[in-house]
Structures are given as structure tokens and as C-alpha cells.
């Protein structure tokens, strides 16, 4: 697959440790889109451990990126807790209607499901186990898990949860504590199945939705830290993904201290950090997982994808140099590569090939 100096795992670990690398790692958050390599529908991909593993391993083998991010969808926990989930044939499953919570006490009645065969959590765990059997320790396997507040909004509906922050905060707190326990059970199973780390999705920590006070009260002070501490006890790597605009970076990076932070840049939104800005501000605290527009994979020409990738390499190199760092950055998309049938798979290859081709040249300025 590659004749580079380092294998994927060596490169990723060196990057985390800010050690010299042959080139910066690349990880285009290609998850459900990989099903197209093995000829399954999205529904088939999202319905079994084999579905996940076949797709994830095929994508890694095809494009040779440096981390397998195991994203199923954001309805796994809510579905296993009893929410109605729709499973389109060729699109991401979605939780319907927030029908689980009709009155305040419904928040208190939520129960922690077990990761048993027949649940979607089990399927993701199996996906990790089968993937790990096939790839061993050649490449990082990092499944994604919904954080407590995200899982709650999937169960109850976002609008309801946001307004219930005023109407019935005590009930929300009880539900969030239950969801912390769900996250713990799920993460433990994923780690026991062989995951090298867990990507926690703390989506609602963003200034388009919540100010500091409410984010801290309903996730940032207690619930996320409790999950994060549990991951530390498990001895597993802890990554945060937050593709919302204007994430609470001081909280989610400086306070929570993830090993890696995955985010998206929105050039039209004031305050959205560029690659270089993110590295300068946070590069000593976390490995920044880069951030370009996932729509490039759908609509970008080959030249546009190549140029955007080289721009990211250049910006990252400048940022790392200025910050006195060597390798703490990973070229990536800001969110999942769209799993739509219209996504141009060649663009994933172009991104990865560009990093392999040009990465060493930029890295020579840093090592």
C-alpha cells in the first residue's frame, strides 16, 4: 500500500508526541462513504458489525489514510434507549420526533441499556472488534460516541432540551447523569473490543447555540469531564469532535484536554479559526485535526481538492513552525466525508495522495 518511511500507527503516534515524522498524518473522516467500495447500501453498512468493518477496512486499504474513524451515526444511543429511528436505504439514520420525552418525569425514567447483541451499540462494538482483527495495530481505530448532551437532544429533540434548560433543569440533570452512565458502558465495550481511542462528539458546545453558562451547566462542568475521566481510567486515547461553528474551544481543549481535537473552519463566520490560528492558539495543548469543507469531496474538482489540501499543509506548516512544534497536526476534513452517492470517491484519493506527495517537502521545514 505505501512505501513511506513510517507506517500509519508510527506516524500518528509520533505526531501526538510532537516527534519528527516523514509527513503530517492525513485522516479524511471517511466513514459511511466507504460502503460504496464494498457495494453495500447505507442501511446495510449501519446495521451490523460486519457492515461497519467491511467498509472501514476497505476505505483504509483503498486510500491509505492514517486513522480509521469509526462513525456510525448519531442515533445509536438514542435508538438503543427506545427512540424511533428511521433507516433510509442510502442515507444516515435519524432519530424521529423526540417522542421519548413527553413529560418531565420521562427524563427521570431513562434507563441505561446494556451493550447486548441486537443493539446498535453492539453492532458498533463488533465493527471495532472485526476491524481490529483485520488491521491489528497498523492503524488507529477510533470509534465515535455521542456525548451526553448530544444523546439527550437526539432522544428528546433539540428544541425541547434547550427550552427545558429553563423549564425543568433538574430533570435534565438526572437524564444527563443517566447518559453519562450510558457513555461509560458503551465506551468500555468499545475499548474492550480493541479501540485505540474514543472520539467523543460534544456538538452542543458551540456559541451559535449555547453560551458558556448553559454549556458548562449542562455538559462542560460535570458530565463531559466525568466521561473523559472514565476514558482516562480505561487508559484509552480521548479525542473530541465538534464540527459546529464557533465551538467552545477554551472549554473543550484547554479544560478538557483531549489528545486530538477535530473541528471545522467556516470561512464566512467571524471568529472561526483557520488551520494556522488553531495551531498557534491550541497546538501545544492538543493535536489539531484539520478542518476543510467536506463538500469539497462532493463538488470539488481534482484541482480544487489538491489545492485545498496543499493550502492546509502550507498553513499547518507555518503554524507549527511559528508555534515551535514539529508535527502536531493531522490533515482532515472538518466533518465526515459526505456518505452520499454523489460524493466523488476520487477526491478522497486526491486528498491522501497530495499529502503523501507534498507532505515530505513541507515536513522538511519542521523536522
Amino acid at each position, binding site marked *: 500500500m505505501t512505501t513511506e518511511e513510517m507506517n500509519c500507527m508510527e506516524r500518528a503516534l509520533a505526531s501526538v508526541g510532537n516527534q519528527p515524522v516523514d509527513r503530517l498524518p492525513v485522516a479524511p473522516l471517511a466513514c459511511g462513504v466507504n460502503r460504496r467500495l464494498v457495494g453495500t447500501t447505507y442501511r446495510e453498512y449501519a446495521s451490523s458489525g460486519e457492515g461497519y468493518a467491511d467498509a472501514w477496512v476497505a476505505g483504509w486499504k483503498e486510500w491509505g489514510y492514517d486513522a480509521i474513524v469509526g462513525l456510525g451515526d448519531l442515533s445509536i444511543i438514542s435508538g438503543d434507549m427506545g427512540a424511533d429511528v428511521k433507516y433510509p436505504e442510502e*442515507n444516515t439514520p435519524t432519530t424521529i420526533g423526540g417522542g421519548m420525552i413527553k413529560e418531565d418525569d420521562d427524563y427521570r425514567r431513562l434507563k441505561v441499556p446494556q451493550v447486548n447483541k441486537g443493539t446498535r451499540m453492539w453492532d458498533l462494538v463488533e465493527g471495532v472488534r472485526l476491524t481490529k482483527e483485520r488491521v491489528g495495530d497498523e492503524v488507529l481505530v477510533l470509534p465515535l460516541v455521542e456525548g451526553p448532551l448530544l444523546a439527550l437532544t437526539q432522544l428528546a429533540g433539540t*428544541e425541547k432540551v434547550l427550552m427545558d434548560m*429553563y423549564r425543568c433543569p433538574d430533570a435534565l440533570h438526572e437524564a444527563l447523569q443517566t447518559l453519562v452512565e450510558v457513555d461509560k458502558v458503551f465506551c468500555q465495550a468499545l475499548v474492550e473490543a480493541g479501540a485505540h481511542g474514543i472520539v467523543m462528539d460534544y456538538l452542543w458546545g458551540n*456559541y451559535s447555540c*449555547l453560551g458558556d453558562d448553559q454549556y458548562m451547566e449542562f455538559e462542560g462542568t460535570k458530565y463531559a469531564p466525568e466521561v473523559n475521566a472514565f476514558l482516562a481510567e480505561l487508559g484509552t486515547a480521548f479525542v473530541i469532535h465538534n464540527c*459546529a461553528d464557533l465551538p467552545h474551544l477554551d472549554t473543550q481543549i484547554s479544560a478538557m484536554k483531549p489528545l486530538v481535537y477535530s473541528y471545522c473552519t467556516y470561512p464566512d463566520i467571524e471568529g472561526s479559526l483557520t488551520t494556522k490560528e488553531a495551531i498557534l492558539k491550541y497546538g501545544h495543548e492538543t493535536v489539531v485535526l484539520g478542518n476543510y469543507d467536506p463538500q469539497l469531496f462532493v463538488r470539488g474538482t481534482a484541482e480544487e481538492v489538491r489545492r485545498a489540501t496543499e493550502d492546509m499543509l502550507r498553513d499547518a506548516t507555518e503554524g507549527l513552525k511559528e508555534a515551535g512544534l514539529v508535527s502536531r497536526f493531522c490533515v482532515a476534513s472538518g466533518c465526515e466525508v459526505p456518505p452520499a452517492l454523489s460524493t466523488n470517491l476520487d477526491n478522497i484519493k486526491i486528498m491522501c495522495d497530495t499529502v503523501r506527495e507534498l507532505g515530505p517537502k513541507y515536513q522538511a521545514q519542521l523536522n
Partner: protein
Amino acid sequence: MADNSILDSLAECVKTGDIPTAESGAQQALDEGMDPLDVINNGLIKGMAVVGDRYDKREIYLPQVLMAAEAMYAGLGVLTPHLKVEPGQEPKHVVIGTVEGDTHDIGKNIVKAMLTAAGYTMHDLGNDAPVTDFIETAKDVGADFVYMSTLMTPTMDAMNRVIDGLKEEGIRSAITVGVGGAPISQEFCDDIGADLYALNAREATERTKAIDA
């Protein structure tokens, strides 16, 4: 209570998200013979405009905006059945929804609240709205605007299919199509042939009003 203090009180109910008092206040205004349009414009909408400003400046956030919108809708629910619509002053119709496959609708709901406050008649398809719902509703109500939102990249294609459907029905040219949501960009808007891209609810409202002017 003097008219002005009822109006100020209603504006305050919206600003503080006091839903029951907005409803009772609106009823009190009617009982005292006030013009419902005046109460809407100078009470409820005035309050919502302040809320919108504060949200733009990040002095308040979504929970407060949603509570304010609910208070506004509570008051509107009492007042709008009593509105007299003069010929030639029919409000413009906006069909709005989050596209099929996506259940995120916060941003859409904020746009809906702001456009309601701006005097538009909103036809809300909710979330996970099928492509056909956008097209059929646009036909049924004689829509002037069709606005689509999504937070997810996999569901953006649905916007394209809505535009294609409007063309097939022969109504595309009579409708302004707007798109928004985190993964949406001006480039995407141009690519799919939509007319309007808005970064946030304030831009959506201002651009809608500019088109209408």
C-alpha cells in the same frame, strides 16, 4: 392599562420568554379594543427584534431565543385571527423546512420566528420534510419563497431535488429559493441554482425583505 404599557408589557414578555403572560396580555389588548396589527407590530415584534439583536451580539443564546419565539407565537395565536387583511396587502408566503433525512431544525425555527416577526406567512414543514412536501406545499399556497435548511452534509442533495421539482411543476421562476445551515455556502447555493444563501436568521430576514422591497 394604557395602550403603551400593554405594548411595552408584551414586548417584555417576548424578551423574557414569558409565554403565559404573552398570551394573556394579547387577550387583554383585544379586550381593550386595541388594533391587533398594532399590538403585533409594536408589542410582540418589537420584543422579538430586540431578542434578535441580542442573539446576534451573543448576549443571549438559543434557549432564550426559543423561549422568546414561543412567547411571540403565543401572542400571535391570540391576535392573528382578528387581523383584517386589506386587498393588496396580503402577506407573502414562505414555505420553510429542514430537508428530508435531517431532524435538526433549530436554525430553521429561528428563521421562521424572525420572518414571522417581519410579517411573512410561514408554512412550516417541520424537519425531515420530504422533497415532495416542499413542492406540493409551494404549489398549494402559492409560495413566494421556499426556504430549506440542513445541518448535515449527506442531506444537502435534497435541496437540489426540490429545485428540480419546482422546475418540473413550472413554478420555479415565481419562487425565491433560499438555503441555509452549517454545511451550506454561497458556492453551494450557486451550484444548485438557489437564489439566496443566508449565514444566519438575521441575514435570511434582511435578504428576504430586500428581495421584497
